[in-house]
Each structure stands twice: as structure tokens, then as C-alpha cells.
């Protein structure tokens, strides 16, 4: 009976270990943050704010994981990844719109010159 109790305890402990935050999820969030950092660069505005949120959430998730709050850590990591992806998308959008504005301005200049 005592052996059985030990066996049950060992199973419970090993199940606890198995519920750690998956490394793939941590890697996914890190990758999204790194990619967004490349895109956002030195931009300010909503993209930079989102990226800052993502980094804070990632740090908080790591603390939760260390404290054994696996489910909460996992959801916070998912939010960090979603924030990072939105930051990257906002950065790409801002750059495309800026390029579009520059070419539009160039056309306006050319049209003015043609009219002279």
C-alpha cells in the first residue's frame, strides 16, 4: 500500500512537470518580438507602444512560469505574441503609407513642373 502511495505521488509530480509552459510557445513569442523589433526599429507611435506591451507581457509571463502559474503564463505569452505581431503589422503599415505619401508628393511635384 505504501509503495502504491509513492507511485501515485511520483505520477502526480511527473504530471506537474509535464504541464510547464511549452518551449515552442516561449520561442514563438520571442521570435514575434524579435521580428517586430526589426520592423518597428526606431519608430514611435502605436507600433512602438504595442511592442513595449509585448516585451512587458513576455517578462511577466516568465515570472509567472517561474512561480509555477503555468496556465496564466501560457495565456500571457499568447497575448505577448499577439501584441508583437500587431506591432510588426502596424510598423509595416506605417512604412508602406509613408512610402506611398512620398511617391504621391513626387507626382504632385512632377505635375506642377509639367504645368509650367
Amino acid at each position: 500500500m505504501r509503495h502504491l502511495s509513492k507511485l501515485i505521488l511520483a505520477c502526480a509530480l511527473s504530471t506537474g512537470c509535464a504541464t510547464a509552459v511549452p518551449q515552442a510557445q516561449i520561442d514563438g513569442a520571442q521570435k514575434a518580438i524579435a521580428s517586430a523589433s526589426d520592423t518597428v526599429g526606431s519608430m514611435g507611435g502605436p507600433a512602438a507602444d504595442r511592442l513595449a506591451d509585448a516585451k512587458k507581457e513576455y517578462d511577466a509571463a516568465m515570472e509567472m512560469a517561474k512561480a509555477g502559474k503555468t496556465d496564466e503564463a501560457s495565456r500571457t505569452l499568447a497575448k505577448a505574441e499577439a501584441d508583437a505581431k500587431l506591432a510588426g503589422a502596424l510598423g509595416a503599415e506605417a512604412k508602406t503609407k509613408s512610402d506611398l505619401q512620398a511617391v504621391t508628393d513626387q507626382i504632385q511635384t512632377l505635375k506642377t513642373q509639367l504645368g509650367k
Partner: protein
Amino acid sequence: MTTQTSKTLAVAVLALAVLAGCSTLNPSPDLVAARSGYAAMANSTNPANAAERGQAQQAINKANAMLNGGNEQTAQQLAQIANLKVQNAQVVGDTADAEARLVATQNEAISIARAKGMAAAGVTAAASAATSATQQQISAEQAAIANAEAQRQKALNTLKLFANVVEDKERGLVISIGGETLFKTNSAKFGPSANQELTALAVYLQLDPRPTVVEGHTSNTGTPAYNMKLSQERAKGVMDYLIAQGVSPDRITSVGFGETRPIADNKTKAGRALNRRVDVVMVKAVK
């Protein structure tokens, strides 16, 4: 009506009541926004954001299921994620549209430049090429800076798996590792798991060039003189290891404080464990 039929009816009524109770949970503003945003693009056939739309729909389904299951707090977190994914799909779709407009506008600019004649077009092209080269150089520099920062952040995240890392306003970045993690009991010799942790520490120090002080601390178990000597030997041991791993000896020093700087109550076992530590302080730059 038989007794059996009455029981079945009662169970059915109870089940309906429970379901009705679940459905009374109100969706959070995030979930309402996510549903509304997704509905606005549900019929889109834009291939540019098809994957993002799919991810947004899945996230909304998860939040809906959690809400129906009655777990309001978790549903709220999932709703926030769903709302972010809907916004991401919208932005990716908008960016694709803007890119298409950019190509069309560039073609228009080329046509107008041709109409102005080859000389004018040449001037425009030269100016455009010069601007492009400058932008490429700036982009490359920004990418290098961002890459270095990403590597530093990644190394810091690895450290956080076993060390307590705090940005102290007065001292700078303080990386605190438990003494039991690094050393054998009552000894300055490293324990079996120290190698992995000190290597991660060395990797981080090579990506963060600030001057560094390795501080040794103990609990109040033992005599003050013994604790002072032990903390000095442990701090020096960590410093020597980091230098052997490639950290420049010009930027690193070690100091032992013995039991003089506790961070927790020495009256409890847990407090004493916290006090037995090595603090690696990345000194804040003096402005």
C-alpha cells in the same frame, strides 16, 4: 405521467436552467469588438490576410467557448487576444491594399516623368537612387542595432529562468542567483548545475558592456568572519569563471559582504536561503 417521465422532465428543466445561467454571462468589450471587427471582414476574399483572418476566427471561437463555459476571467484574457488578432488581420489587409496603391502610384510617377522628357526623368531617377541608397544605409544600421538588442534580450530571458533580475534605480541591473544553486554547502566550490548558469551569465555579460561588480552575500549562520571570507571567495570564484569565459578583466571586480547586507529575515529558513546569494551588478552609467 409516470414517475420515470417526471424525473426525466425535471432533469431536462434543470439542464435548461443551467444552460440559461451560463448564457447570462455578458461578453467583454474586447470580445464585442473582436466579433464586430471580424464580422466586417468575414466575407473578404483578400488572400493577403487569409491566414490572419483564420487565426482571428479561431481566437474568437476559443473566447466564446470559455465564456459559455462560465470562466469569465479567462474568457476576458482570451477576448483580448482575439481582439488583437482581429486588429492584426485588419492591419495586414490594409497594408496589402496600400502596397498595391504604392505600385500603381509609382507607375504613374514613371509615366509622368517620361512625359517630361528623358533629362527630367534622369534627374528624378538620380535623386531617387541617392535617397534610396541613404535609406538602405540607415535601414542597415537600424537593423544591426535592433539585432544586437534582440540578442541581448534573448540572453537576458535565458538568465531569468534561474536568476532574479531587477533594474534597480540606484545600482543598475542586479542579477541575483541563489548561493545553493551555484555552490556546494559551506564551500566556494561550484555545485553540479553551476556551469550551465554561469555560462548563460557570461553570454549575457558579453552582450551588455557595462562595468560589473560580483557581490557575495551569506546568511548569519556561522561566525561573521567565516561568512565574510566565504562570500569573498565565492564572489571571486564567479568573477574568475566569467573572465575565463571571455569577459574582460578590466570591467569586472568582486567583493564579499558576508552577512552584512541581508535582503530577508535571517530568523527563518526561507529568509536565510534568500540571503545566501551572489548579486551580479551591471553598474548604472553615470550621466
